[in-house]
């Protein structure tokens, strides 16, 4: 199926605009829906977890979670893979510290890791789910601090 079929079939959220709006109006309305490239459209409300600066900056995230198996590597998408897998990286030799993660969230590399490796580790951390080691630490890092 091509894009036009999607549009004419009304499958898309705004697929009926063109039919409803007068000529020359729909594009503007669509453009308004899109907004500007720089305008953020996702606001995340963090759960109420540990909130003091001390607890936030002292926590750690093991990469990967030891429960997922010893000796595993992290691929570029943050997936836990077997050691030696292509496009995968050795895990850090120790758990990553909150302050290091905070800096990496702003684009810095982890100590001893290059850019690709650091992005892989961050991809893993972003995929953490409730119950996994380090989840609460990462969630805490994302909360606005006083």
């Amino acid at each position: 199926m091509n894009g036009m079929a999607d549009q004419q079939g009304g499958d898309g959220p705004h697929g009926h605009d063109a039919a409803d709006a007068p000529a020359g109006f729909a594009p503007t309305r669509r453009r308004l829906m899109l907004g500007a490239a720089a305008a953020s459209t996702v606001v995340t409300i963090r759960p109420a977890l540990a909130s003091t600066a001390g607890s936030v900056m002292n926590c750690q995230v093991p990469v990967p979670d030891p429960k997922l198996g010893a000796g595993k590597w992290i691929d570029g998408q943050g997936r836990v893979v077997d050691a030696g897998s292509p496009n995968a990286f050795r895990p850090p030799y120790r758990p990553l510290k909150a302050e290091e993660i905070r800096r990496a969230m702003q684009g810095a590399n982890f100590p001893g890791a290059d850019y690709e490796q650091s992005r892989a580790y961050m991809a893993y951390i972003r995929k953490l789910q409730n119950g996994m080691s380090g989840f609460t630490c990462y969630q805490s890092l994302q909360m606005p601090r006083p």
Partner: protein
Amino acid sequence: MTILYHRPSGMTHVLLPPAPNILAALDAGPADAARIAERLGFAADDEAVDVIAARLAELAQSGLVAIED
């Protein structure tokens, strides 16, 4: 405005257009920014593709979409 609760992370997200529209467009299957633009009725619109690419990056940063190779 759309409120989304992401069960895996336990996070709640407030989404403004076009973020919900992009997620809805992805219901039809994985797609890049250009394909999503087509699905939203912005075929061959480079500016729209740029905006959607920026929104996709934001959604990925929030953990709401996964970027594949």
